[in-house]
């Protein structure tokens, strides 16, 4: 799939299967719909005064829990973003809103995606054995710095990717979900190793989470026990490709195992 190939209509207009109730433009408040039309018309022209009179309340179309027991027992977070206008004259284009508003991507967005894909900063989240393969992937022999992933940030506020490396236990799941929530968008999640993909060798255990996609949306699954650092690098390159293609399929991300249509 070539970068920038967005199909005949220029945008993947329809969200993937399995998402009822979605038409974000219509479901959002009228102000947001007006904003969508305005922005689609204007294409980076500043929004005039009076065009936006309502706050942008972005409903949560980013994560929907396929597992009925994730996230508060099935009730997803209703509101993802709340933006207040009135701070500037010029209507600000907030990139994080693109999932809801389906704005036609422009050249600036394309370059932004390239920038993001080439400098994905991972969050150090090494829990168990796979952490060592992640560290191997980051050090001299299989250097991930070649693709910009050198700084393994300790703080979630400064990182883009959460590479969950190692078995997630129920006791640790709380802190890990907090970390995920603290990461600012855009963010992606990579499941490294069998334990995070599906529970792996701890399928029968009483205290492990059977795959982190039960609690957070995963973009790339890297199987292996542990996967070789080359496997991790391949996964990260695939993530970069995903980022460049249509912003990582934002509207289609679900919590829960997802199988793409094309398989």
């Amino acid at each position, binding site marked *: 799939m070539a970068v920038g190939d967005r199909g005949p209509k220029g945008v993947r207009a329809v969200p993937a299967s399995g998402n009822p109730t979605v038409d974000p433009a219509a479901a959002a408040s009228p102000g947001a719909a007006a904003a969508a039309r305005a922005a689609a018309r204007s294409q980076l022209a500043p929004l005039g005064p009076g065009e936006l009179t309502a706050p942008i309340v972005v409903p949560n179309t980013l994560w929907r829990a396929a597992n009925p027991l994730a996230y508060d027992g099935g009730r997803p977070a209703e509101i993802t973003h709340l933006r207040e206008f009135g701070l500037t004259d010029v209507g600000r284009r907030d990139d994080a809103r693109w999932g809801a508003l389906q704005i036609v991507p422009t050249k600036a967005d394309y370059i932004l995606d390239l920038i993001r894909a080439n400098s994905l900063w991972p969050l150090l989240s090494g829990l168990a054995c796979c952490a060592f393969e992640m560290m191997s992937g980051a050090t001299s022999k299989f250097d991930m710095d070649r693709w910009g992933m050198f700084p393994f940030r300790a703080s979630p506020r400064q990182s883009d990717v959460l590479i969950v490396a190692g078995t997630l236990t*129920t*006791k640790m799941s709380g802190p890990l979900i907090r970390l995920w929530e603290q990461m600012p968008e855009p963010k992606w999640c990579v499941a490294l190793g069998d334990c995070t993909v599906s529970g792996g060798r701890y*399928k*029968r*255990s*009483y*205290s492990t989470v059977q795959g982190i996609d039960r609690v957070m949306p995963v973009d790339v699954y890297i199987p292996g026990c542990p996967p070789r650092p080359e496997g991790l690098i391949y996964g990260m390159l695939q993530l970069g490709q995903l980022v460049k293609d249509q912003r990582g399929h934002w509207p289609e991300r679900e919590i829960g195992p997802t199988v793409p249509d094309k398989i």
Partner: protein
Amino acid sequence: MDRNLKRRLEARLDAQIQGPIRQRHDQTEIRIKPGDAPDVLRTVHDSVDLRFEILADLAGVDTGAEMQVVYHLWSETSPDWLRIIVDGISRDDPRCPSATFLWTGAEWLEREAYDMFGIIFEGNRDLRRIFMPPDYTSFPLRKDFLLPDDAARSPGEGVRHIERPYGPAVVADDPAAGVRRAPAS
């Protein structure tokens, strides 16, 4: 197989050892009652000819009928490992005296035995859960705590269990049906 060790143990602890002292390979094993545990451990630790000063392990065991606490000790005076099995701890109210008066390192080992089995060590200053979250209510390594996929399956009946097709978990009405009992030896 240190016969000398067996003689020394019999000389010091004759009254407290239940049953014969067993020796196999490089291990010597004695069984005692929970009430005698502090005395036996103190004797075995302090006596000049025994001097088992290194605590190698403190484990809980759930034989289906009752519980045990197993100590493994090492001394310079003998090439054998000494295994002390504190037998006869009931499953309904498992209590055992703590070994923390001799070895501070036993504190966390006893916490682990409590967390996994529910054995309450009297004298341990810090008996709370160590692995499971603090509000967990079960004791995972007990024999009646069944893993989700193999309830009421008893292997060793002539067919390798791992070759059996996985069926739905069968929860018997009798709560002891799936519980494996230890052999009588």
